[in-house]
């Protein structure tokens, strides 16, 4: 066990591991690229949907069930399925990652919208604000902390799951995990896993610090 951790340490800090197209630096950049793009697409889909459901109050049933459906859907199965249907491209990976992220974004946006005090909305309407003005100038700013929590959760889950890109022969940090498994090289497998975990935890801590900073004047 001690020998293993010593080798793992050496693998993580070895200069040759970090350089070149198979190097950690490049794999890390790929991993972040997949994760950020997928979260961005998911936000473009999930945010308007959550705002619409929250604003109109219609489709709450959909928002709640979407969350449990998203939790139940096996990501590995989804990736393989889209891969077999669409052939070798990044599409299966993005489909799976977006499908993973959308429910978290929709449900948190919806939760944020329902938490807005109805009296505040009434006051806004009473001042003559139109529906879209209430949505954009009153509800959205008040719901923002919870919306950001949803985005953070989604991004963390996506970063953790982007490992799967390597399963269908693409890059990212999952490369080390799957190559290591194939080559029975435990040090490489562990190295990849540790890197993904560190990236996920670091992003989570950084984003929650940012959240605390942005909303430092709010009490709730």
């Amino acid at each position: 066990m001690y020998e293993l951790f010593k080798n793992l340490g050496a693998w993580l800090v070895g200069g040759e591991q970090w350089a070149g197209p198979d190097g950690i630096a490049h794999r890390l950049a790929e991993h972040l690229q997949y994760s950020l793009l997928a979260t961005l697409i998911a936000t473009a889909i999930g945010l308007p949907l959550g705002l619409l459901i929250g604003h109109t109050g219609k489709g709450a049933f959909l928002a709640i069930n979407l969350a449990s459906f998203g939790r139940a859907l096996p990501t590995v199965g989804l990736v393989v399925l889209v891969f077999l249907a669409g052939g070798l491209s990044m599409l299966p990976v993005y489909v799976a990652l977006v499908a993973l992220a959308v429910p978290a974004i929709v449900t948190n946006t919806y939760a944020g919208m329902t938490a807005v005090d109805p009296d505040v909305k009434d006051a806004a309407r009473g001042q003559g604000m139109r529906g879209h003005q209430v949505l954009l100038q009153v509800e959205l700013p008040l719901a923002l902390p919870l919306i950001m929590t949803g985005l953070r959760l989604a991004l963390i889950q996506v970063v953790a799951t982007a490992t799967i890109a390597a399963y269908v022969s693409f890059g990212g940090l999952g490369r080390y995990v799957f190559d290591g498994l194939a080559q029975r090289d435990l040090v490489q497998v562990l190295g990849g896993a540790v890197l993904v975990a560190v990236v996920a935890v670091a992003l989570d801590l950084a984003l929650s610090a940012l959240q605390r900073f942005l909303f430092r004047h709010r009490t709730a």
Partner: protein
Amino acid sequence: MTIDWSWIGDHTDDLTTLTISHLQAALTAVFLGVLISLPLAVIAHRVRPLRGFLLGVSNVLFTIPSIAVFVLLLPVSGLTRTTTVIGLTIYTLVVLLRNTVEGLDSVPVKAKEAAKAMGTRPLRTLLTVEFPLALPVIMAGVRIATVMSISLVSVATYIGDGGLGQLFTDGFQRNFPTPVIVGVVLTLLLAVVADAALVALQYVLTPWRRRRA
């Protein structure tokens, strides 16, 4: 992409075995998760300084990718069912711990004071007053943890286990969609059935809530 129905007919035995193995892994993990999180939640509920620490640790554990958790456990428990169950249990802890603490927090102070005034000992109060009243919130956590575990079991296919997840690897390697579709559908079905069973269990366990509803 067409479904080869005859493949399904020829493999009903295998599918049954995989489904049972899948469910077994998920339920064992949730059961262990409940066993671990109940005492931890009581500690987090009673000892305020430890609360942030316990919830924080479980949150960090949750951010670690599932595949990484399984892989990191390899030096400890190898390519076995134990690795799958430990990995899944770690994931259930976050949801179970948070909900159980919230459930205990939601117990009305008056109910606890009444129990105390009647001379009920703290442990008995916990078991006969606090846990029953916290049960709806705890069960909400158990439902989430169960559905999540059922979905996550398939990730363990990379370490040679994974129940229905084996159908994904199989279909991928042979470029044959049928097992993959069957695997996804069966996983979703298992989740729906397990969730419904838990709703029924909660109904049985909380008879005092029925009259109100």
